[in-house]
Structures are given as C-alpha cells and as structure tokens.
C-alpha cells in the first residue's frame, strides 16, 4: 500500500512537472508529501513557479495560475492510467485567452497519447473554436433541456440566448 502510493507519487510528479512546463511555457513545478513521514497519512503540497517568478505554494499563485496548475495535476494523474472518457466542466472559466489556447493545446496533446473521448463544457468562444464538434444545450421550454448539434456560428448565438 505504502510502496504503491510512493510509486504513484513519483509517476504523477514526473508527469506533473512536464505538463506544467508545457502549459506555462517554462517555469517549474513539483509535488511534495508533507506533514507526515508516512505517505499514507501525508498531505500533498504543490510548489510551483511560472516562468520568471519565484517558487511558491499553490495558494500564493494568481487565480488563473492556480487553475492551470491544478489542471496539470489532474492530467498528470490521468496519464498514469488514461480513462476512456474525460469530461471537463467549465475548467477554463478563470483563464485568460492566452491560457485558454495553451489549455486547448494540452487537450490536443492528450488526444495523441490515448483513445480517450473528451466532453468539454465551456462558455469560452476560443475553446469552442478548438473542438471537433459542438453540442448545444437549450431550454426552449422553461425548465426542460434539449440537446442539439451546432456549428460554431450557432454556438455563438446560443451562448448569448437567455
């Protein structure tokens, strides 16, 4: 149990370091086990610095930097055992346009590594533009959801509908 957790930690830490550098185009990040010598009761800390900045714990980064770093961690775990389906619900909400683009680049990179099918729920026009296809959810009748296939132009209008 202890041995397996430490092996998982090493593999996730390695993936995490690489994914962080890809997402931030530089910088460095690592995971640390803290608060206990026993990994089974330790805490998981994240030390990271975007390029040009000093390393700090996750809690001291900006909102968008935290979200991108957490995404790197989630995908680091994902890569150790890729699932056949991945659903991301509005994870791009705190990202600026530049980081949304890097997030989408990472999704494309994930496609090359596994046969995972992705469902990406988003309000971001840039993310929509990077998808292979779009489904719109509407409530033409109040309180009743319907699914429709949409192209990018319709999606623009759908986002703004009430």
């Amino acid at each position: 149990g202890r041995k397996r957790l430490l092996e998982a930690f090493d593999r996730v830490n390695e993936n995490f370091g690489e994914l962080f550098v890809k997402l931030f185009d530089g910088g460095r990040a690592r995971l640390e086990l803290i608060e206990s010598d026993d990994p089974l009761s330790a805490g998981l800390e994240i030390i990271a610095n975007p390029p040009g900045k000093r390393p700090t714990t996750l809690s001291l980064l900006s909102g968008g930097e935290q979200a991108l770093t957490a995404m790197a961690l989630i995908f680091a775990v994902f890569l150790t055992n890729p699932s056949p389906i991945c659903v991301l619900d509005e994870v791009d909400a705190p990202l600026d346009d530049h980081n949304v683009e890097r997030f989408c680049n990472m999704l494309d990179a994930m496609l090359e590594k596994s046969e995972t099918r992705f469902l990406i729920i988003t309000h971001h026009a840039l993310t929509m533009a990077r998808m292979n296809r779009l489904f719109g959810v509407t409530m033409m009748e109040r309180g009743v959801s319907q699914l429709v296939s949409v192209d990018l132009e319709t999606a623009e209008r759908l986002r703004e509908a009430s």
Partner: protein
Amino acid sequence: MKFARLRLSGFKSFVEPTDLEIKPGLTGVVGPNGCGKSNLLEALRWVMGESSYKSMRATGMDDVIFSGTKSRPSRNTAEVVVTMDNSDHSAPPMYNAEETIEISRRIEREAGSAYRINGKDARARDVQLLFADASTGARSPALVRQGQISELISAKPQNRRKILEEAA
C-alpha cells in the same frame, strides 16, 4: 471498451428522451447558464453507480427525477442508459462476448435504483466494478465537476493526497 452514447430520460431537466453521441476527439458542450450542461455529467456519473446524492447536487436520490415545471407535471421515474462499444473486446469476461454493452440505471420515487447490464438485472457493485475495470467510474479523476478545481486548490493537503490514491 469505448463510450458511444448516453441516453437520458426523466433525469433532472432532461425530461424527454435525449441522446448524447460520444464520438472520438473533442466534443464541446455549450449553452446558457442553467440550461442543463452539468446535468449531463451528473447523468454519466449516476449511471456508473454514483451513490452519494450530495455529489449530485441533491438532497436525496429522488431529486434526480424530473420534478416538473409550471407547464409539466413531475415524473415518477428517471433512467439513464450508457452504451459502450466493445468491438475491441476489452470488457470483463462475463460481458466480453458482446459487441456493445448497455448499462442502465433506473430510479423510481421512493423505491430506489435498479441496474441492468445488457438487459440482465445487476447490482450497483457489478456496474461499479465493470467501469473500474475499464479505468473509469463515477469517481474517475478524469471527470472534473464544475468547481472541483477550486476545491482542489483550497483543499487541505491531507484531502489533496486522495487524488494520488486514485492513481495508485
């Protein structure tokens, strides 16, 4: 095993039978606030055997049944069916003969949930094990709920470590 389709009927705001095709690559899901996007993810986790109604934004499991609007009465049952493409025959031996595998969960008000795998009654545990065997499931780290990233960021280090246990 690959995910091919998700069908919702009476599940939360998806009162009418609704098919979501799950195709290869990146599928975007868009729409205004409150239109039902997050309900789709909840339906997927629910049919894979999610047992905690709190993680489904509900105060009891019956809350996932369509509760009615001003112009429509509430329903008494909800059902979600997920269709798996098993043409690579990577499913557990018990189901591996089939080209497609259908897992369904149906709930009736005040009568609980019933599961089926390819039409045969199954227990929640059977369904959970089937998906666990395929490296997925209701608690898969690859299913990121709305706000879950914020939770991870503000979580105590002790709680964050649990994400590693998923990988172990």
